[in-house]
């Protein structure tokens, strides 16, 4: 909308009420397996932004991920092939091969793919790789140009993963050692930075038929988040009790490098601190009666 494009949205009928600016955009109710709604949504469209892929997996069955991510994308590709100029796919960094060791950091745009992790994450990775392959193939056949974005954990509105993470830390219920092992080093991308990346590649000549890693600049562990939350909630107060643990747990090396996007002029504008401050605002932690702050957060 800010770039003077007319915007049409294909949305599930029961999600339309959550959409902002409903009076300024055209909405086609439907879903990815409904060819009629796809045709209606694609009529006269130049650029498709396909962001309807689902994750993270805990509440989703592998079959559902396959249905939406793999088959749903294939259906959209079939409908869009030969009709649109560019297809921007918002995939995920879940498609990358295992990258636990800092020796293989930072992962770049050209990193190899391999579904991995626990069975649910593997299923998610397989469904995303299948989605990507459907898009790549249509581009190989010259039916449109693709730009595939692979963002890290996305912060911002509807960022359930991050809200849960933050709430767990604030409530003192998070098992930080376990989460340190599970999530290792993270490098969140804010939704607004992802959106700017999508807009950039959609209109950039040098972005055609390329894949881009999308990642913020700051590598963090769960302990960094704990320390940053303390800073945010104790502005101006010295002696962060979590700073040393956070420092010991973070090599400070980036795990992902958005080299391709940066070469096109993109840079993340939202820092980790911004993401967390926004999350705290969303959780209304100052006034929320349900959020019982543990003593170690209150008394410091």
């Amino acid at each position: 909308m800010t770039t003077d494009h007319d915007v049409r949205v294909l949305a599930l009928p029961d999600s339309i009420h959550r959409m902002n600016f409903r009076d300024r955009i055209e909405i086609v109710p439907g879903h990815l397996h409904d060819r009629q709604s796809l045709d209606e949504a694609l009529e006269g469209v130049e650029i498709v932004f396909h962001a309807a892929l689902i994750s993270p997996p805990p509440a989703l069955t592998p079959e559902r991920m396959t249905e939406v991510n793999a088959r749903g994308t294939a259906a959209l590709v079939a409908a869009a092939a030969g009709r649109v100029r560019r297809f921007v796919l918002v995939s995920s960094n879940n498609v990358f091969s295992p990258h636990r060791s800092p020796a293989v950091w930072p992962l770049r745009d050209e990193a190899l793919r391999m579904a991995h992790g626990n069975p649910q994450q593997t299923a998610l990775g397989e469904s995303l790789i299948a989605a990507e392959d459907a898009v790549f193939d249509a581009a190989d056949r010259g039916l449109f140009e693709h730009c595939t974005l692979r963002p890290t954990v996305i912060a911002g509105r509807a960022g359930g993963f991050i809200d849960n993470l933050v709430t767990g830390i604030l409530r003192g219920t998070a098992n930080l050692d376990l989460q340190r092992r599970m999530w290792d080093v993270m490098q969140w991308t804010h939704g607004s930075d992802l959106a700017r990346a999508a807009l950039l590649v959609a209109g950039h000549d040098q972005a055609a038929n390329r894949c881009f890693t999308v990642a913020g600049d700051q590598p963090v562990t769960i302990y960094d988040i704990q320390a940053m939350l303390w800073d945010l909630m104790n502005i101006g107060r010295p002696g962060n009790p979590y700073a040393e643990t956070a420092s010991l747990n973070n090599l400070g090396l980036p795990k992902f490098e958005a080299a391709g996007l940066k070469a096109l002029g993109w840079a993340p504008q939202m820092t980790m601190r911004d993401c967390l401050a926004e999350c705290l605002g969303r959780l209304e932690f100052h006034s929320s009666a349900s959020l019982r702050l543990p003593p170690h957060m209150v008394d410091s």
Partner: protein
Amino acid sequence: MTSVLVSETRSRLGAAVRDLLVARAIPVAEAGNAVGVPPGAALIVTDLAPALMAGVAPSRAGLPEDRHARIADLIAAVAAQGGRVVLVSGLMPLPGVPPVTQAERDARRIEAALAERAAAQAVILRVSDVMDPADPDLRAAIRALIDASPVVGWPLTDQLQAIGLADLAAAAVAAVQARGVQGKWFDIVHPEAASRVAVQAEAQRIARLLVDPDVTEVQCRPAYPPVTARRDGTAAAEALHVRPRDSLFVLLAQAIQGMIAQAAQQGTIPPIRPPMPAVHRALETGALPLAGMTAVVTGATGQIGGAAVRMLLRLGADVVGVARGAEAGARMAAALAEEHDFLARQRRRLDAERVRRDGGAPVAGDPGRFRFVPADLADRAALTDLAARLTAMAPRIDILIHAAGAITRERQETPQGVEATLALHLLAPVALTRLLAGPLAAAGRAGGAWVVSPVTQAQAEHPYDPADLQSRAAYLPAEVLARAQSGLVAMTGALAEAMTGSGVRIAAVALPAVRTPFLLPLDEPLTGGVTAQQVAQTQREQRRMQMDTPAHAASRLIEVMLAAEFAEAHGCLIQGDAIAGPALPPGDDRARAGALWSACAALSGLPE
């Protein structure tokens, strides 16, 4: 402030300051000379920075006379227009102590010029030990530090407290904008300090860590003995609202990461690749390691078998799929024929990406072709016919995967009167392997053949019972299946012994539970009220969500044929990513296995 002049942008600090200003949408003007300085423009003087790089380059030449004169003129011009001057300067020696290094002498001269021309508008940022991870001199110093014992060069003092280039650039930009800071100086430093011994130990630890791609455990820096920081950056943090982000340990790690990447790029050390199973690496690079080979997969229309077929085709093998359902097989053959062009394009694209990424020449070739043969493997007569047909179709069989499986709630028998689970999960794979010994040996002579049998992990807990092979005493479906597969493990060892020297390698692969419909017949009907049924269904779903994906299970089977670590797996059971040992069920011995071999032969109508 209308715009900001950067005194020079050739140094890394000057460039970093310029880039940061641009990123923050602050107008940047070229500081060509003192003529035409816009009213109110600010000036950031970065000329001294290269000489302040952590003491790693004491020989770096000082500023030439004409540069001193130019800086002095710029300062005067900006001051005359009412602008602010930010100077990145070195630490000042104590009063009465003469400057020692060239950087100190230069700093003293420029500060004198600043005091004379723009004292009221000046903001001085005092820095020492600036660390730029990309600085070749810093990298050389770290290299020497890693190799030396004890420390002989940098850090030059007993403790190090540094500032990163990016943080220094941020402080310089903040100093242009902050209120109430004119006429003051600030110590710009990260609060964390470390002894030179700790710096060396950490450099050596990081250097080891960053060349080991197999590390999986959580990485924490050891808590080195604390040192009291001698410098305090609190005033800068409060006045400029900037807190240095990168500690010296982070800067050290970044520098070492850059050094290792550079060495790999130059070929000084081998490239460090993420660990990846051979099958996935081959699939993602468009390689065709199985080109020209023929594979037979039983249970081809099932989930694991179907995934194995697709992977084998992508890796270049021609595949003959076998399954009971003729219609499903025909549908699969039609779908794969239709998909062949898609797979071929995918392979060419991945191959082209490999060439772009890793170099080398393109590899020609296409994915394999698929044919289907219907057969009920539990039926002895059908099995014999199948073997004859396969031998006619493929005089050389390079790969045989026994992926057929089925389970029933009630005991059933084959037309020959053999319990069906035993027939399908033990007798069929053993007999088919024996009946295809000729084509397998032909492949063995030509370079090697593989026979791979997936089994469940439950087989280890339920050894086969020679006294009741046919489960007549009791029929508990899951246990019957596990016992049959325990027998298959034993027969894998026996077949391996029989085929030793033929070039045919045989292994069993124990898979974790896989998310297929295979075990669904064993699910008890849901009972109770609606809520109870929903809870039970949810729990069932949660258990299924923890099961391996069929594609992942299939990749484990094919990995056996491609990965170097399984080259010696002949006659072995493979569990997880490693060889668990000889294919011998717990408590088994040669005599028991021999008796089972005889029993299998008798039930299959084959000679011993």
